């Protein structure tokens, strides 16, 4: 089994993701520079956080139009796992791998804080190690993280089980007060139709070791590993 972490100019969570996958979870992982492209097949591709191309135009817009993203789309179309975290989520949404867009926070400032997430779907390749309804603690760090899917789409995604995570309070209630950026229906983790792509604004790689204050994000990587072992 081998994972890849895709690096763009301005990615800055690439090393963190690589560390968690290889050192914490024990899975071989390559850092792949976007210009070099993929030289082999991978079980999973992680698009990490950061500020690719300085967030010019829109967060993720420029990275989305690089040739390597065509390979990511093909990997996803063939059933391979793609995890987009933060800027990677913005890239995944801009790419059309999932519906909607992550845009300027309701209150337009950069938010860096721990939040609670409710696990809405615990049967996806990314969430099977959780239990539906689990409340997990993972940090966010973004200014463009407000999920907007358009009229009726967010509710449809909920109905179809394509929402992996929603912002909630410590008791698991998805309230306006527990929605840090104004996302539609508190949504912050969205799955593709086949559920082999997950994009999410919170950083599971920053919550995968107790020394960092939470290990709740580790189960996400374990879920991916479990899925790849069975596949």
């Amino acid at each position, binding site marked *: 089994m081998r994972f890849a972490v895709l690096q763009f100019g301005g990615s800055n969570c690439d090393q963190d993701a690589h560390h968690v996958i290889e050192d914490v979870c024990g899975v071989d992982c390559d850092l792949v520079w976007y210009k070099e492209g993929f030289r082999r097949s991978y079980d999973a591709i992680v698009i990490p956080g950061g500020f690719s191309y300085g967030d010019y135009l829109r967060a993720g817009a420029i990275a989305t139009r690089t040739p390597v993203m065509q390979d990511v789309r093909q990997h996803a179309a063939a059933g391979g796992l793609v995890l987009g975290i933060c800027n990677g989520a913005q890239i995944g949404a801009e790419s059309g791998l999932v519906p909607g867009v992550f845009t300027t926070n309701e*209150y337009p400032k950069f938010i860096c804080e721990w939040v609670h997430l409710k696990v809405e779907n615990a049967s996806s390749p990314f969430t099977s190690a959780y239990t539906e309804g689990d409340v997990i603690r993972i940090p966010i760090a973004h200014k463009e993280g407000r999920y907007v899917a358009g009229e009726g789409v967010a509710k449809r995604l909920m109905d179809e089980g394509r929402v992996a995570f929603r912002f909630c309070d410590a008791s698991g209630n998805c309230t306006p007060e527990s929605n840090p950026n104004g996302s539609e229906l508190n949504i912050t983790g969205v799955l593709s139709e086949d559920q082999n792509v997950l994009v999410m604004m919170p950083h599971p790689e920053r919550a995968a070791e107790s020394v960092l204050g939470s290990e709740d994000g580790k189960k996400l990587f374990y879920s991916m590993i479990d899925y790849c072992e069975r596949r």
Partner: protein
Amino acid sequence: MTITVKITISLKDGMLDPEARAIQHALSNLGFETASLSTARVFKVGIDTDSPEEAEIMAAEMCDRLLANPVIHSYELEAVK
């Protein structure tokens, strides 16, 4: 000849515009009370062609494929030479 197309990208009606709200607030601090305010982004793209129509068609494709995100944006084009 080069035709310049002015591309104006705005948020669709009804979309939350947090930046506009913050600017309105700052204007209010300066004593300017505004009934409404919205933001937009303008690109001026020079295209080598003699045909304004052709230039606008190309600009529209640029918007559809990169400059605008159809989930939240609408755009207007104007060939300005």
